[in-house]
């Protein structure tokens, strides 16, 4: 039975890619954009760009209004309520670096930072480098065969020396939901700060930062059908005062003289320089669009597609799926076939998937793999995309066999 996406036509690039013979299944890397976003960008640039939070003039007031509306929409998307603040950064990576520098003074030699074995480099390297700067111990939580953080091991590894826990909500390689509630509870019981990398998780289903109770939640706009160059950092009111200012300049300052300065609190104090104004306004339009969709229908469609992708791979001989993916993506390797060869032939046939280490080199190394192929789904994909993918896969394997 075919699986249609009623939202496919809302994304003009999908039809354009189709005309170029391309089937786009690299959505965990970045997503196509809805017409609503394209319209918002076009409206902003054709009706008068202006800097925000500075000028008294009318274009400045309009831009600031639209910019701040987007902040409210991002808060609404995460159900932040008045529990915390939304800070706009230049990407999820930038947000995690802000945290690793802004929380540095909270850490003293011998403290421990806990991450997991499946972290994307963006949620590994900032903490690894912080640990090196401050002589901290970076503790890596192991994962089980399914690709889920081992909660029993976590219960012993998260201890009184743990200063901070930083983990992904949904793995970008294994497609597995992580046991956040229990991990966060373990960290909180030790008085540790908590950071959730929601870069993949935020794209699938709605999440509630108040229910999660994390101190910080990070996601990237471009993976959530929004513009690039924009990250969203939610900080809980209780945790934000721990964060020291990181980058300086622009409207983040309260008062300045030549030798001294005072800085604004969150959010503006952490948005140094001119922010990516158009991208922020564009994200607002994307969130309006996403908010207008039937969430249950989206989730059901994504699950049905994912099941079909997973089952199709499992039915084929010699294919090993990495972990037990819950949603969104499947990474796999084929016995006796180099992932670069398979990627090459899929590319030749117009299948856009990702091959390699997926910005998680230590994870792939720990699995003993030089790389893997990852097919990742979005709400605009349909069963024809999967038919194209499997036809190309079969052709490739026949050729390589």
């Amino acid at each position, binding site marked *: 039975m075919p699986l249609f996406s009623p939202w496919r036509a809302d994304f003009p690039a999908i039809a354009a890619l189709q005309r170029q013979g391309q089937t786009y299944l690299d959505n965990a890397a970045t997503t196509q954009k809805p017409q609503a976003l394209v319209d918002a960008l076009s409206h902003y640039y054709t009706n008068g760009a202006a800097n925000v939070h500075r000028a008294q003039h009318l274009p400045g007031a309009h831009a600031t209004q639209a910019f701040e509306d987007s902040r409210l929409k991002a808060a609404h998307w995460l159900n932040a309520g008045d529990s915390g603040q939304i800070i706009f950064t230049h990407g999820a990576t930038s947000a995690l670096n802000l945290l690793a520098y802004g929380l540095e003074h909270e850490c003293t030699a011998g403290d421990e930072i806990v991450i997991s074995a499946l972290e994307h480099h963006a949620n590994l390297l900032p903490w690894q480098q912080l640990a090196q700067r401050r002589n901290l111990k970076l503790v890596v939580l192991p994962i089980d065969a399914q690709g889920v953080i081992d909660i029993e091991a976590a219960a012993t590894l998260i201890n009184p020396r743990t200063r901070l826990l930083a983990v992904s909500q949904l793995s970008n390689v294994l497609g597995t939901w992580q046991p956040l509630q229990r991990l966060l509870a373990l960290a909180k019981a030790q008085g540790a700060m908590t950071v959730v990398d929601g870069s993949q998780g935020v794209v699938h289903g709605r999440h509630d930062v108040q229910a999660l109770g994390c101190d910080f939640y990070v996601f990237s706009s471009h993976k959530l059908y929004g513009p690039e160059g924009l990250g969203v950092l939610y900080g809980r009111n209780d945790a934000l005062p721990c964060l020291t200012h990181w980058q300086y300049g622009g409207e983040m300052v309260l008062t300045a003289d030549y030798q001294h300065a005072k800085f604004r609190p969150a959010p503006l104090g952490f948005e140094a320089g001119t922010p990516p104004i158009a991208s922020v306004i564009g994200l607002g339009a994307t969130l309006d669009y996403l908010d207008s969709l039937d969430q249950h229908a989206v989730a059901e469609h994504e699950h049905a597609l994912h099941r079909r992708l997973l089952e199709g791979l499992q039915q084929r001989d010699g294919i090993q799926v990495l972990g037990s993916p819950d949603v969104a993506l499947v990474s796999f390797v084929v016995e006796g076939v*180099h992932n*670069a*060869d398979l990627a*090459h*032939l899929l*590319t*030749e*046939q117009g299948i856009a998937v990702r*091959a*390699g280490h997926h910005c998680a080199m230590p994870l792939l190394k720990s699995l003993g793999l*030089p*790389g893997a192929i990852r097919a990742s789904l979005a709400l605009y994909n349909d069963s024809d995309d999967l038919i194209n993918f499997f036809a190309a896969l079969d*052709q490739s394997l026949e*050729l*390589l066999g």
Partner: protein
Amino acid sequence: MSLPEPAKIALDAFGGLKGWEQRARLLMQWGDQLSAFSESEKSDEHLVHGCESKVWLTGEISNGVWQFRASSDARLIRGLVALLLARVNGLSAEALQGIDLPEWFNQLGLGRQLSSSRSNGLNAVLQKMRQLTQA
């Protein structure tokens, strides 16, 4: 510039190809013709950094011209590397400096198949060849 004999053969073979399947089959055939590297030859010293898949390279000079050997753990990469070897083996260090890698793969009709990461990888192989000739 006159081409080495293997390069002419490569141009003939790849020039008349139609479709990705023919191209892929021929690439793999060319890759299969490369002499295999022993496990001891697959050393860090011979590894080319900057490739998606592992590529190993050795080279030696005799009578003023260079002969390289290379291999990869990926078959299609091995084919691309074989085509590079066909172009550069038997050249002097000086002639090697003048090789235009994108131009060579364009002549073969493979320019479009080279993603930027892949052509970066092949470029890394060429750079390592040049380093070997300067050492």
